[in-house]
């Protein structure tokens, strides 16, 4: 059973609907005990880091997520869920979970494209990922595909080896991270059409071991 962590951060139902469509058993839960006992965990989220960490701490989910990660079972971060696994977010100057070293940064403002035209923050829409290496949870047929992004902040891990993919929007920013049994995506697979559902399906079958 896959647990989708409910910590009152935005719309969780879209991840649940996507898994339902794929006929993958799942439950949405905010119970730390159920999270610890899960086979796989998805950590989604839309919203601000400060509010998210406050909710995670007050419910004891912060420790449950750390324990789950240390268990070696597969963990998937999405958007805000990807950001708060780092040590610190510049958004609301928030100390975060620290499953991996690094910070969450805001896009530089002003931001412009290669021709010097101003770019709007948030980065919203379909963009591609330049995958830096192979990963068992990212099937090769999706490597050229575009995914759906909506965000003003991005993860900046402390070690280059944690970066699984980068995306260009004014700057090159890390849009996918991988470390042991963790895979973390800045974009929304649940809103990214067939390739996005393909990634969720691959996660549901992944054993949690990185190839390298």
């Amino acid at each position: 059973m896959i647990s989708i962590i409910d910590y009152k951060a935005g719309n969780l139902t879209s991840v649940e609907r996507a898994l339902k469509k794929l006929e993958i058993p799942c439950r949405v839960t905010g119970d730390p005990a159920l999270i610890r006992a899960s086979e796989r965990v998805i950590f989604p989220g839309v919203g601000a880091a400060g509010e998210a960490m406050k909710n995670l701490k007050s419910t004891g989910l912060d420790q449950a997520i750390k324990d789950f990660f240390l268990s070696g079972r597969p963990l998937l971060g999405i958007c805000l869920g990807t950001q708060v696994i780092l040590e610190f977010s510049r958004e609301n100057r928030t100390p975060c979970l620290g499953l991996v070293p690094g910070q969450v940064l805001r896009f530089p403002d002003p931001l412009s494209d290669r021709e010097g035209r101003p770019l709007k923050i948030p980065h919203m829409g379909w963009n591609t990922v330049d995958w830096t290496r192979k990963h068992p949870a990212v099937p090769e047929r999706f490597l050229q595909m575009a995914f759906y992004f909506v965000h003003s902040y991005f993860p900046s891990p402390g070690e280059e080896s944690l970066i699984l993919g980068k995306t260009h929007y004014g700057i090159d920013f890390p849009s996918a991270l991988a470390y042991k049994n963790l895979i973390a995506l800045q974009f929304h697979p649940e809103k990214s059409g067939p390739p996005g559902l393909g990634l969720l399906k691959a996660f549901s079958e992944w054993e949690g071991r990185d190839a390298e």
Partner: protein
Amino acid sequence: MLSKRIIPCLDVREGKTTKGIRFKNNIDIGDPVEMARFYYEEGADELVFYDITASAEKRGIMIEVVGRVAEEIFIPFSVGGGIASVEEMRQVLLAGAEKISVNSAAIRNPALIQEGAKAFGSQCVVLGMDVKKVAVSRAIPSGYEMVIQGGRTFTGIDALWWAKESERLGAGEICLNSIDADGTREGYEMALTRLISEAVTIPVIASGGAGTPEHLGQVLKEAKADAALIASMTHYGTYTIRQIKAYLKDRGVPVRYLW
């Protein structure tokens, strides 16, 4: 690189899809959920549902349609038509829409844009603009006026001013519909689209008048729109999304493709 988006627009009346020609003589052409699934599988980047007979008592029908669509398609979609309060926005978003579009209600009550952006984030709030070309005057210096009620009522508000004002209030995106071009299939209103696209930094979706892939190429390249709304040209099978995207890709427009 961020893709330019191709967005089919489904007009819905009492739970059924319609496509009006200049907002008159609407003809039923199908089930919105079926059409949404069709476009999703074809590679549409986003969908827009416009509830053209929205009224308080009929709202429930649309919420139910939104819920069924959200179970079938996994790309962002927006819902517009008669949404006039933060509570109505919340219901539509909870049912599974990614964005809500406000139009005449935002003209009557501009604070609606601010309140929506504060409650759900700017990326959830699309300002729908219905615009008609008029004589340049002191009140309408751009020569484009905001209209409501499907083009029947002039508001005295300049479209260029309103676009900038909506960005200031927190709109995340503008869906710019030319009433003059709507349903003609003779091409987008290029001058209007360029005027608004260059005046705001939020994305502009061009709407009204799409008839051929060339029209999309023009509006996305020359008029600098970020996205293009289409309806009749694909609803009746004249073109497919894939044909349109192949055309655009060949001409150097960044598009998302699934093949």
